[in-house]
């Protein structure tokens, strides 16, 4: 199992992601410069957070036209996991690999804090092992994270189980106060129909070790463990056993 973490000019979460994959999960993860990326030999690709190309024009737009995206698109078509975290999520929507758009936060300012999230669906590669309805805690750090789509398209996402994470309060309710950026339906993460292409604004790589969390939580690790199981053919370890 080899995972490529793509490095774009302006990426800044690539090493944290590599650290979690290599050091905490013992996976074969490689940092690959976007212009050099060739998908052969890789089982998954992660587009990390950051400010690729200075967020010029719109966050993620220019990276979405990188030659690497041809390979990313092909991996998505082949059913291999393609994960976009924060700026990576923005790239995936800009590349048309995930529906909708991420616009400037409703409050206009950069938001950097821990949030509570509810798992709405476990059909995605990142939520595969998580029970639906579970509340997890992860940090967010973004200025363009307001998920917007046509109402009709959002209804479709819900119907298909493609909304994977929503911003909620401590009790698990998707209140306006718990919504840090004005996302429609408090949406924090979505996936494609097959569940292999996943985008989310929160940073699982920054919430994977208790020492980094004000709550001592390691919830981010579960998302990467899910990825591992999804790549291994999808055997869920939770449930009946």
């Amino acid at each position, binding site marked *: 199992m080899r995972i490529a973490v793509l490095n774009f000019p302006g990426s800044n979460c690539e090493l944290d992601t590599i650290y979690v994959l290599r050091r905490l999960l013992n996976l074969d993860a490689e940092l690959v410069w976007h212009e050099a990326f060739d998908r052969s030999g890789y089982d998954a690709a992660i587009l990390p957070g950051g400010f690729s190309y200075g967020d010029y*024009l719109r966050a993620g737009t220019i990276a979405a036209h990188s030659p690497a995206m041809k390979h990313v698109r092909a991996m998505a078509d082949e059913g291999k996991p393609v994960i976009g975290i924060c700026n990576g999520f923005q790239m995936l929507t800009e590349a048309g690999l995930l529906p909708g758009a991420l*616009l400037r936060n409703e409050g206009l300012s950069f938001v950097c804090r821990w949030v509570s999230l509810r798992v709405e669906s476990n059909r995605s590669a990142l939520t595969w092992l998580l029970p639906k309805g579970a509340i997890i805690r992860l940090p967010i750090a973004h200025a363009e994270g307001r998920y*917007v789509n046509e109402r009709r398209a959002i209804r479709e996402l819900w119907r298909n189980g493609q909304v994977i994470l929503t911003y909620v309060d401590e009790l698990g309710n998707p209140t306006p106060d718990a919504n840090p950026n004005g996302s429609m339906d408090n949406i924090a993460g979505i996936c494609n129909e097959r569940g292999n292409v996943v985008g989310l604004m929160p940073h699982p790589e920054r919430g994977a070790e208790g020492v980094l969390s004000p709550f001592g939580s390691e919830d981010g690790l579960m998302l990467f463990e899910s990825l591992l199981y999804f790549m291994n053919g999808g055997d869920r370890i939770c449930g009946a056993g």
Partner: protein
Amino acid sequence: MREYLVEVIIQNKEMAKDPEGETIERDLIHRGGYDSIRAVRSGKYLRMLVKADGPERAREIVVKMCNELRLFNPVVHSCSVKVRASGRKGGD
């Protein structure tokens, strides 16, 4: 072949809230006493010189480019393309 000055304006569709426009309207324009102004929308402005056989052709090239390279996201943005200045002779 002549060069034309073409302007591209990208703005949020009505369905996508525009908090920047709202803030400019509320906290700058209205606070500054200009109550007769409303419905402020912010956007992105790009200008470019385009070599083409005529103004219509210049516009066509830019419209195609905007669609092909997704200079705007059709889900949430509208994009308008205008040829502003009539052609002047190109550099070569």
